[in-house]
């Protein structure tokens, strides 16, 4: 099978990450931050190593790198830890449910209100949309840095600058951008970055990151054992302990360190250029196939994701066809009803092509031929 569903999770992983996972489960089986014996200390050292690498990668301090299960987990911590009753937040119409659902839940039971702004393809329009939505009660802007549905890349540096100017907390969903574009918390004025370590950072699933610039206190939503201040019934008020109750995913952390080394060794720019070239190659071919619609807007910049539909085929039906041809893609709503509403692909969604650094031009060409076959098959229905 050829995996073109890397926006869900990258697979395969680099050899170095696979080796790191094997080493982790063999050598670093202690519970880090719990005991003083050599096994626990060794695990703790590896986990710190991962935090340091992540901190260096994103321009943060290691103690402000919180390990989570995934990006959704990180976003829930951030959103529910920052917002208070009476707050107003601004989100985009391209948000994944990992942003929209917590915000919606807080609006139903937590006294929070929200505005959804259009992520217009023109940067100036998008920024004006955010500015117009700001009210005296607005405390945060929660925005995807890049859509998991269309791949639209948001002007996050300008959004960060706007937030800083207006005194708003910028919570960024970096799930699709981390590893392919440059993100620096200080330079980009991002207060809290949430990302999935298992996508563009090539770590094992079950690993995510919440990285704070330290400016906003994030109230914990889970309390428990942290291996620190154990006599105090109150949860620690310092990171990362405040947000890391329970045993952390040491294997995931070690795989993250290896994934970051991999991305650094190849280079974000090279990874992005390679994946983008595959997307551009596919789009050129798709646009020559009758019955295929590619969802891209003039004026927008894109991550390496291509969203398309085949006339006569429901997206999941098309993906079953592609699976039988040896290609793995995700069809449907991609956990973002908002985005599909914005794109105009409701109620059934679309097919998403999302290559990784390991995909090739030859695989892309073969996939384009499969799309052509599907278009002929379903177009005659």
């Amino acid at each position: 099978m050829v995996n073109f569903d890397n926006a869900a999770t990258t697979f395969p992983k680099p050899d170095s990450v696979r080796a790191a996972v094997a080493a982790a489960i063999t050598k670093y089986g202690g519970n880090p931050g719990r005991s003083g014996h050599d096994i626990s200390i060794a695990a703790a050292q590896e986990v710190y190593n991962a935090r340091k690498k992540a901190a260096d990668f994103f321009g943060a301090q290691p103690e402000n790198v919180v390990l989570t299960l995934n990006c959704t987990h990180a976003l829930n911590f951030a959103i529910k830890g920052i917002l208070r009753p009476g707050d107003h937040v601004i989100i985009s119409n391209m948000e994944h449910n990992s942003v929209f659902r917590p915000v919606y839940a807080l609006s139903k039971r937590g006294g929070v209100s929200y505005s959804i702004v259009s992520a217009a393809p023109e940067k100036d329009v998008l920024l004006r949309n955010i500015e117009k939505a700001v009210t005296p009660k607005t405390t945060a802007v929660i925005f995807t840095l890049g859509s998991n549905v269309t791949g639209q890349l948001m002007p996050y540096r300008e959004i960060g600058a706007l937030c800083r100017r207006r005194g708003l907390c910028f919570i960024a969903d970096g799930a699709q951008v981390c590893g392919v574009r440059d993100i620096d918390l200080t330079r980009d004025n991002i207060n809290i970055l949430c990302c999935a370590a298992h996508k563009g950072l090539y770590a094992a699933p079950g690993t995510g990151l919440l990285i704070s610039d330290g400016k906003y206190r994030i109230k914990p939503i889970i309390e428990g054992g942290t291996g620190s201040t154990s006599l105090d019934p109150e949860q620690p008020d310092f990171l990362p302990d405040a947000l890391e109750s329970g045993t952390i995913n040491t294997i995931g952390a070690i795989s993250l360190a290896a994934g970051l080394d991999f991305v650094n060794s190849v280079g974000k720019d090279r990874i992005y250029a390679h994946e983008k070239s595959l997307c551009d190659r596919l789009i050129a071919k798709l646009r020559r196939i009758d019955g295929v619609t590619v969802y891209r807007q003039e004026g927008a910049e894109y991550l390496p994701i291509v969203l398309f539909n085949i006339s006569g085929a429901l997206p999941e039906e098309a993906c079953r066809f592609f699976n039988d041809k040896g290609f793995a893609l995700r069809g449907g709503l991609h956990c973002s009803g908002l985005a599909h509403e914005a794109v105009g692909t409701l109620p059934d969604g679309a097919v998403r092509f999302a290559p990784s650094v390991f995909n090739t031009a030859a695989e892309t060409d073969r996939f384009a031929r499969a799309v052509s076959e599907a278009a002929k098959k379903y177009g005659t229905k």
Partner: protein
Amino acid sequence: MKRYTAAFPSVTLASKAKYILETQGYEAKLIRTPKTLASGCGYSVVTDAQPQVIAELLESYGMNYKAISVSNE
């Protein structure tokens, strides 16, 4: 050679102190904080750096510590 122990509230902060000391050429080892040094749970760094050096280095990195003492190790 005398060793000194600096206590921190968490393993992450102790690990950061260890990293800072090692990059400056000092020995540094992580241990659980001795009860004689600080109460509650936490981790410490045992190092050959002098207390004044430890304090200045940590301060330059914006780090607080709970206590520094001569180590019995």
